[in-house]
């Protein structure tokens, strides 16, 4: 058992001097940051600034060329690291849901539990049902992904990740592929998760969500972190011109920039 103050500061993810290139395209140019236990960190920034790449480096879907990613103190960029074991602790929710189309909502949530965590089918089933209920989909457990709306699919994807009891959840623009009227349901689920104390790293364009839920907002541009801090500062009163320009575009999409 650890005390309250200890868990509050223990880093779940530590990223040190992270560099990632695709060929000549130097996408991440030295990223340093930390996500502590129970923290909700929102990553914002223009398209192409490397937000997805950063998130994908955290569970090594992309292999960085330089730097370290420490998950609960373990360096997962170390070739000797047990990567699959590390990934079990990191839930990932994708922009395009990536549900398994040949499996029902329930089995989507049990398949990794039984094969990876070696849980008994009955136990996996119970946990999956609990998590589907948590995202408000107890009625849809036997449905296949194709029978669900985008918002429902994304909530199944969240339940699938939660069923592994992750220490950290990664969200890569989880509402960007959704029809506007379905965005709210997913954000509600995420808000509830945050309240439950889940550690979350969220790439999003939903500024209202970031402002309300995030403990910290990170603004990325051109492969570097330009500024980070409490949402009231980064979104409410940004100190960098690049942040201001970006926020003007996002908050007022009809706004036309004076010729740059």
């Amino acid at each position, binding site marked *: 058992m650890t005390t309250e103050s200890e868990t509050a500061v223990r880093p779940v993810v530590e990223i040190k001097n992270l560099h990632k290139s695709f060929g000549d395209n130097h996408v991440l140019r030295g990223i340093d940051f930390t996500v502590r236990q129970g923290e909700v960190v929102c990553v914002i920034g223009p398209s192409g600034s490397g937000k997805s790449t950063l998130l994908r480096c955290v569970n090594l879907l992309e292999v960085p060329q330089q730097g370290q990613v420490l998950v609960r103190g373990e360096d997962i960029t170390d070739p000797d690291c047990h990567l699959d074991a590390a990934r079990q602790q990191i839930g*990932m929710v994708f922009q395009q849901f990536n549900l398994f189309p040949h499996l029902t909502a329930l089995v989507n949530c049990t398949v990794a539990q039984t094969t990876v965590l070696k849980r008994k089918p009955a136990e996996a089933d119970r946990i999956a049902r609990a998590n589907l209920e948590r995202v408000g989909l107890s009625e849809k457990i036997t449905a296949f992904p194709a029978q669900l709306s985008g918002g429902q699919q994304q909530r199944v994807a969240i339940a699938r990740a939660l069923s592994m009891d992750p220490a950290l959840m990664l969200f890569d623009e989880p509402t960007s592929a959704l029809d506007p009227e379905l965005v709210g349901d997913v954000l509600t689920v995420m808000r509830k998760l945050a309240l439950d104390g889940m550690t979350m790293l969220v790439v999003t364009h939903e500024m209202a969500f970031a402002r309300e839920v995030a403990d910290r907002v990170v603004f990325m541009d051109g492969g570097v972190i330009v500024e980070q801090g409490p949402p009231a500062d980064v979104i409410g009163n940004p100190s960098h011109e690049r942040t201001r320009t970006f926020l003007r575009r996002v908050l007022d999409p009809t706004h036309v920039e004076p010729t740059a």
Partner: protein
Amino acid sequence: MTVTAASEPVVRPGLSPRQRARRSRAIQYTILVVIVVVAAFTADWRQIVDVFFKPDLMKEAFEEGLLSALVRTLVYTAGAFVLGLVAGTVLALMRLSQVAPYRWFSMAYIEFFRGLPAIVVFIAFSLLPLAFEGLRIPFDPYGTVWLALGIVAAAYMAEVIRAGIQAVPKGQVEAARSLGMPPGTAMRKILLPQAFRIVLPPLTNDLILLVKDSSLVFIIGTSATAFELTGFGRDMANSVSNLTPLVTAGFCYLLITLPLGILVRRLEAKAAKAR
């Protein structure tokens, strides 16, 4: 037409495009009618029916064991399909392996047996017992037929299955891996089930080809008790000096392949709709 006309818009005075299409259709129908009429009057229909479709010979074919020949064709095909499917999946996985020699072997195998006429493989199998004295392939003659057909089928199916695996969206592997699934588990639980769904139509096509290739069995020189449709039809046609038994056997092939062909088109339509 003058040479300069090519550069001008092709508008011929007099006929609109619709009128021209109608005229073209009328010409095609006329040609068809002429051919049918000529055929009907010049051909000796009595003779044709007598040689190809003699009813009492059809009946005799049934009595002589056409149905068991049909069953044997089905058993030869089914066994070879299962063998080809298993070996083809293994070859497809080898083709996608990280280990280069596996890839090379698989590539060499696939190219070799796809490039070779199936009949050559069958001739080789017919010669095997001569070359290796005392060699016995289990489940004779089924084992030999399954092996000969399966070896070739595996090459075709491997390519189809590999394409199917690669057609599964990249996000599926990423989702599986991000849940902590090792590559093998992700392949078995996530990729292969989806890949097989994708390749169901082309695999059914391969099955149709197999049904037909099973006719090559006669080259191995099976005894009359192991005759499949072609062997049976040929043997009986020889002995009665009439083509009717062979034609009857041919119809039996269509009885199998036509429904499979329809199934393929259904599956393809369904897949196109799902996309």
